[in-house]
C-alpha cells in the first residue's frame, strides 16, 4: 500500500467518525460503559485474589520438637526439615523463646516454668506452595524427634477449597464479562456499519479492493476503542489511587493489603486499552466482511 493511501485511510477514518457523529457516540459509549464495568470488576477481583494469596501465605506449619531431645537432635531435625522438598522458610524458636511467648500471652503465672521448661523447641515452616502444607506436615510428622505437628488440619483444606472456588467463580465472571463486552461493542459497531452498507457497496462497484474498503473501517474501530477507553482508564486510575491512599492508612497492620497502584494500574490500563482496541478492530473487521461480497 502506498503511504499516500495510508494517509488517506487515516484521514477518512477520522472524517467518517465526525460525519457519523451519533453512531460514533453510540459506539464510544458502549465501549466506555463496558470497559468501566470490566475495570471495576478487575480491581475487585485482583484485590480479592491478593487477599486470598495473603491468607494462603499466612498458613504455616508448627513443628514441636520432642522436649527430651537435646540441642544436637534439634539441629538434626532442623537440617532435615530445611532439606524437605517444598519447604521455603524455617524459623527456629528455642524452648525458652517459646516459653517467653506463652508468658506474654497468658501472664506471669507461667514464669514458674522457667525453672523446669516443659516445652520443646519449635520450628515454624512456610511452604513454597501453601497448597502443599498438609503434605509437607505429614512428611515432617514422620521424622525423628518430632513431638507434634500443627497446621490447622481440616481448616486449612477447607480454606483452600473456598479460595479455589472463589478464584474459579471470579475467573468465570471475568470471562463472561469480557464476552458480554465483546458482544455488546461489536454489535454496536455492526449496527453502525449496517447503516453504511450502501457506502461499502458503492466502494466495491467503483472498483475498490476489499482491503481498501476494510482498512478505514478497521482504523475507525481503533479510534472508537481508544476514545471509549479514555474515560474508564481515568476513572479507574483516580478512584483506585484515592481508595489506596485512604484504605492503606487504615489497614497498615492488617493481614489484607490492597495491591500497590504501581504497577497494578499500569497493567490494568494497558489491558483495558488492549481490550477496547482489539474489540473495535475485530468488530469492524467482522461486520465489514459480510458486505464485501458485492
Amino acid at each position, binding site marked *: 500500500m*502506498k503511504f*499516500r*493511501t495510508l494517509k*488517506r485511510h487515516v484521514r477518512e477514518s477520522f472524517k*467518517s467518525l465526525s*460525519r*457519523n457523529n451519533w453512531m460514533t457516540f453510540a459506539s464510544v459509549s458502549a465501549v466506555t460503559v463496558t470497559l468501566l464495568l470490566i475495570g471495576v470488576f478487575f480491581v475487585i477481583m485482583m484485590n480479592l485474589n491478593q487477599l486470598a494469596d495473603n491468607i494462603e501465605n499466612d498458613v504455616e506449619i508448627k513443628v514441636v520438637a520432642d522436649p527430651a531431645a537435646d540441642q544436637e537432635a534439634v539441629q538434626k531435625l532442623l537440617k532435615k526439615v530445611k532439606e524437605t522438598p517444598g519447604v521455603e522458610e524455617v524459623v527456629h524458636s528455642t524452648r525458652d523463646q517459646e516459653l517467653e511467648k506463652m508468658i506474654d500471652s497468658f501472664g506471669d503465672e507461667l514464669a514458674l516454668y522457667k525453672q523446669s521448661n516443659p516445652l520443646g523447641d519449635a520450628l515454624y515452616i512456610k511452604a513454597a506452595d501453601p497448597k502443599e502444607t498438609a503434605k509437607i506436615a505429614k512428611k515432617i510428622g514422620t521424622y525423628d524427634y518430632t513431638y507434634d505437628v500443627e497446621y490447622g488440619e481440616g481448616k486449612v483444606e477447607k480454606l483452600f477449597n473456598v479460595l479455589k472456588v472463589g478464584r474459579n467463580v471470579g475467573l468465570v465472571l471475568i470471562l463472561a464479562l469480557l464476552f458480554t463486552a465483546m458482544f455488546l461493542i461489536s454489535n454496536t459497531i455492526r449496527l453502525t456499519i449496517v447503516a453504511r452498507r*450502501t*457506502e461499502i*457497496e*458503492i*466502494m*466495491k*462497484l*467503483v*472498483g*475498490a*479492493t*476489499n482491503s*481498501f474498503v476494510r482498512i478505514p473501517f478497521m482504523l475507525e474501530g481503533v479510534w472508537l476503542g481508544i476514545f471509549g477507553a479514555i474515560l474508564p482508564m481515568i476513572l479507574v486510575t483516580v478512584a483506585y489511587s484515592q481508595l489506596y491512599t485512604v484504605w492503606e492508612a487504615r489497614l497498615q497492620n492488617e493481614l489484607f493489603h490492597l495491591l500497590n497502584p504501581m504497577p497494578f494500574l499500569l497493567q490494568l490500563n494497558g489491558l483495558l486499552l488492549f481490550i477496547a482496541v482489539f474489540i473495535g478492530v475485530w468488530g469492524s473487521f467482522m461486520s465489514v466482511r459480510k458486505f464485501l461480497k*458485492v
Partner: protein
Amino acid sequence: MIVMKNVYKKYPNGVVASNGIHIEITKGEFVYVVGPSGAGKSTFIKMMYREEVPTSGTIYFNGTDLTKMRSKDVPFLRRQIGVVFQDFKLLPKLNVYENVAYALEVIEETPSAIRKKVTEVLELVGLTQKARMFPNELSGGEQQRVSIARSIVNSPKLVIADEPTGNLDPDTSWEIMKIFERINAHGTTIVMATHNKEIVDTRRNRVIQIEGGLITRDEYEGEYRYEI
C-alpha cells in the same frame, strides 16, 4: 467488447433470470435493453460487471472470461466499467466533488490527477458550480449527473446504466440522454436498460429486448415497441 454465450442464471429461490442468452456487443455501440419488469434486464447487465455470476455459460469482456475470474481480480474489471443506477447510489455524506473523486481515490490516483479529472468531468455534466453541494441539496437530475460523472471519471471502456431516467421528469431525462450521447461520441460503449419509450424511439440505437430471461428481439436502430 462483450460476448455472452449460452448464459443461464438461476437464483437460489428458483427464479430463472437468464435462460440461455447469446449476445455480442462491440466497442463504441449504444445499446438499449428493454423488456417488462422482472424479465431479466437487471441480471443481464449485472452479469457484465460481475455483480451476478451466471450459473452456466460464458461471458467475455475484452477477451477475459468473467465466469472464471477470481474474486480478487473483480475490482480491476470494475475500474474499466462505469455503472449508473436508477437510484443514483451517491454517498450522502460526501459532496459532489468528493463523490466523483471517490472513484479515483479507490484506484490510488495522485491528488493532482484527481483534481484535474474531476474538474473536467464536472464541466462535462454541467455541475462545476455545484461541486461543494451535498446530494440532498440537489435535484434528481443533478444527482443523476453526479452519478454519471462518477461513472466516467476514470475513462471506462463501458458505461452500464440501469434505468438512469427512471426517476426523472421528461425534460431532465433528455438532458441525461444528451450526456450519454456525448460520452458515446468519445468512443465509450453504452448499455442502458430503460422503460423510456420516447427516448428509445427518438434517439435510434440498437435495441435488445429481453423477456422471460431470453433475448426476443435484437434490432439496430430499433424501436421500443413494447407496451408496459
